């Protein structure tokens, strides 16, 4: 990144690109880790009136002392205006259809935006369920957000093992088998609107719902992204370069990311 005048990491670019997707005044729910940083960055920068919450029902808060260790961390509980509970946040405000946008992470994502956070198996699971070779974190609230939020932003490190033609296990639904298959289940939420990675931004084709490359970063390129994606990634005719983070954006992000969690990689 030495050729650029601004110094920033890929993770910071990903967080800023995600934050740019959030609009002022929206009701938004943030997951743990990077997604929380991206969300509160947007609040600190261009969306001061965003109505942010975590799935524990922590309202009116912004992190103090660095990246919160979790959605219930004291770092996010030190200046809240309301504490409620899971049924309230994930049920009354997300499953009901009130929530405009949610941000979730992924261990593995496929071309229809389905997310696996449950486990890594050696090959297919088969007809008889068996424990994964490597157990991951499970769905948590991401499944509920994927079903109920108006739109969903998926943040994921862009590595071939994470970008599968089809995920082994769907923990949180994207567009399932593509096309209109999501409609079969009557989800109130609209599905993922973008997969934002450490290399670029993928968006779904309006008809097939297959994710294609929409934009890359000043430090990445189309070939690099294709070679890090384990399906034949289509490139949008409108593909473009994402504008670099501005000085103000970086300042806002680093204020939220006080301990520099995003600068380490």
């Amino acid at each position, binding site marked *: 990144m030495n050729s650029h005048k601004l110094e920033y990491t890929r993770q910071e670019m990903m967080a800023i690109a995600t934050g740019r997707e959030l609009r002022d005044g929206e009701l938004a729910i943030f997951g743990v*880790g990077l997604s929380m940083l991206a969300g509160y960055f947007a609040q600190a920068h261009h969306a001061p009136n965003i109505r942010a919450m*975590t*799935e*524990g*029902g*922590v309202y009116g808060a912004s992190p*103090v*002392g660095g*990246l*919160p*260790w*979790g*959605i*219930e*961390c*004291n*770092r996010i*509980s*030190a200046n809240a205006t309301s*504490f*409620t*509970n*899971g*049924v309230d946040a*994930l*049920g009354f405000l*997300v*499953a009901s259809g009130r929530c405009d946008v949610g941000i979730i992470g992924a261990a593995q994502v496929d071309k229809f935006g*389905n997310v696996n956070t*449950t486990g890594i198996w050696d090959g297919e699971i088969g*007809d*008889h*369920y*068996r*424990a*994964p*070779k490597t*157990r*991951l*974190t*499970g*769905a*948590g*609230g*991401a*499944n*509920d957000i994927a*079903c*109920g939020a108006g739109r969903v932003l998926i943040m994921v490190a862009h590595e071939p093992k994470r970008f599968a033609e089809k995920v082994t*296990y*769907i*923990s949180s*639904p994207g567009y*399932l088998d593509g096309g209109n298959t*999501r409609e*079969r*289940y*009557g*989800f*109130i939420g609209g599905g993922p609107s973008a997969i934002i990675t450490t290399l670029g931004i993928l968006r779904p084709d309006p008809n097939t719902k297959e994710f294609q490359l929409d934009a890359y970063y000043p430090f990445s390129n189309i070939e690099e992204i294709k070679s890090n994606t384990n399906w034949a990634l289509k490139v949008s005719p409108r593909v473009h370069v994402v504008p670099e983070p501005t000085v103000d954006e970086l300042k806002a992000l680093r204020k939220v990311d006080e301990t520099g969690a995003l600068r380490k990689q």
Partner: protein
Amino acid sequence: MPQPKLISLATAVDRFTQNGVQYASGAALPIGSDAIVFGRELLRQGRNQLHAIFHCNSQQLNLLAGAGAVDKAECGFSGLEVFGFANGLRRSIETGVTQLEDYSNLAMAIRLLGGAMNWPFVPATVNIGSDIQYRSAFSPEEYPSTSKIPMITDPFSGRQLGAFQSLQPEVAAIHVSMADPLGNAIMLGTEWSRFELSRAAKKVILVADEIVHTDCMRQFPNLVRIPDIVVDAIVYWPFAAWPQSSPGLYDVDEDHMRSMNKALATEETTQQYLKDYVFSYQSHRDYLDMIGNEKREKITQTETSFLMDPYRKWILSADEIAKLVLEGDR
């Protein structure tokens, strides 16, 4: 008139649990509130073959599963958030010791809500269409599963919904910031599903960081989300959620979160952890010494401590509490 229900931790585990018990903990948050010390005591008394119902994994489930004491578990989230994967739980799942039935976080909460209402099931449109619905660790041969989250038809609109089986755990240990001797409790921070769990479980034991006078509850009755009438016993145990956090009282112990999870990664180091941090203390005083003075000072300097300010004048002294526990244990 309601009577004081304070008893010792050892008595609570002895009186309310047995091998194979369906055990729920609250809040079952991965870094925040959880009745972690109750899980340590379950191991100290040799309880095993547990059926664990945890809204989310916590260091307690991580420890119980890592020690091989959990046959079945039901969870919405099975990690430790920013602290990473839960090594004890994942090892017990990967080696087949624990069968983990996966749900989402909303699903676990509404299953407890259903239990509280004494409904057989609760309808919702989460988890359907994903492998949470199609795959069952409890009935692995059934694929796609039609018994875990069966589809039902809304009799009014004809819409298809998932049916979630209600939960009524045999016993629940619920961590709260403060309780009075009768069992009225105030929780600081997110409740997660403690409100629902306190009504769903057949037996409820509160594990409180502080014991306050009942006058405190009369001052803030709107904040008493767990009233004494649903509570069977109260255990007083400062730093009950350690190494996790308790809003208003102490922060997460970052060093121990990491070292504990690292220890739980192998059977050998788990045995060492049990020796050092589970079987090592004989009293609450010993337990505090085990955490260490310096560490306790550090984690109690929390940005959230002002949340406790309105309640401090009602906190009972250790002597007053000890007297009540003596009576309760008789």
